[in-house]
């Protein structure tokens, strides 16, 4: 851990906020992507059987 001096709070909170935001957008994208893919495969299987 480098010595951040009196600005430790500022630097650490900036990193924390940014990383949380980045992880959130990546996580949300992946979560929605999985859900949509599963749903599509579900529908595809169904329509494949019927038609």
């Amino acid at each position, binding site marked *: 851990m480098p010595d951040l*001096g*009196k*600005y430790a709070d500022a630097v650490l909170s*900036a*990193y924390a906020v940014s990383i949380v935001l980045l992880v959130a*957008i990546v996580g949300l994208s992946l979560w929605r992507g999985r859900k949509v*893919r599963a749903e599509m495969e579900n*529908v595809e299987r169904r329509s494949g059987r*019927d038609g």
Partner: protein
Amino acid sequence: MSLWEYANPVKFLALSERVMPWLWVSSAVCLVVGLIWGFFFTPDDFRQGSTVKIIYLHVPAALMAINAWFMMLVASLIWIVRRHHVSALAAKAAAPVGIVMTLIALVTGAIWGQPMWGTWWAWDPRLTSFLILFLFYLGYVALWEAIEDPDTAADLTSILCLVGTVFAVLSRYAVLFWNQGLHQGASLSLDKEENVADVFYFPLLVCIGGFVLLFLALVLYRTGTEIRVRRTRALMAREAKLA
């Protein structure tokens, strides 16, 4: 073989499936290397102290906030001119990523500004322009969400994107006229005098690379998701018709 081949959703998906693992891995490597390099192995600035480390997040995020809008503009134009669905969906996919980048730039800027300028927020031209850009992103996403028919939504949002671009640029200069700023000049420019010192420059470049790659990976992935949503909808509509 031309670029337009990838306007075909199937080809686009196949390509992005192949490219995406590389993008995810390389962006993660760049981000980890760049941020660790910047955080642990660069000296403090003699005036800014350790807050200079915030630059490794602030500058790439700000850069991507603008470039994401620019990418949306190009994608919107392609949709208007050539009517490729993938293009419209890519614009849609990029907007939330742009919002996050704008937010990161604004928040890290505020956190940096507090000790350095003595205030979280100042109505400085650059800050204000970013806030306005943020509002444009919000309007764009809200319009996508509000319209049922996907083609209508694509048309309307593309035109909003074009008009919004003109007004965003106008606002940029209007704001410049309205208030002189606190914000320093460009951190990266071809002008050597204005540039940041080399110790900060190289890790910063790595971080920018990481952000660009992350943006590309996210947009490809999210575009794929949007394509699947449309396919699901089309299949379900056909089912409903058959039944």
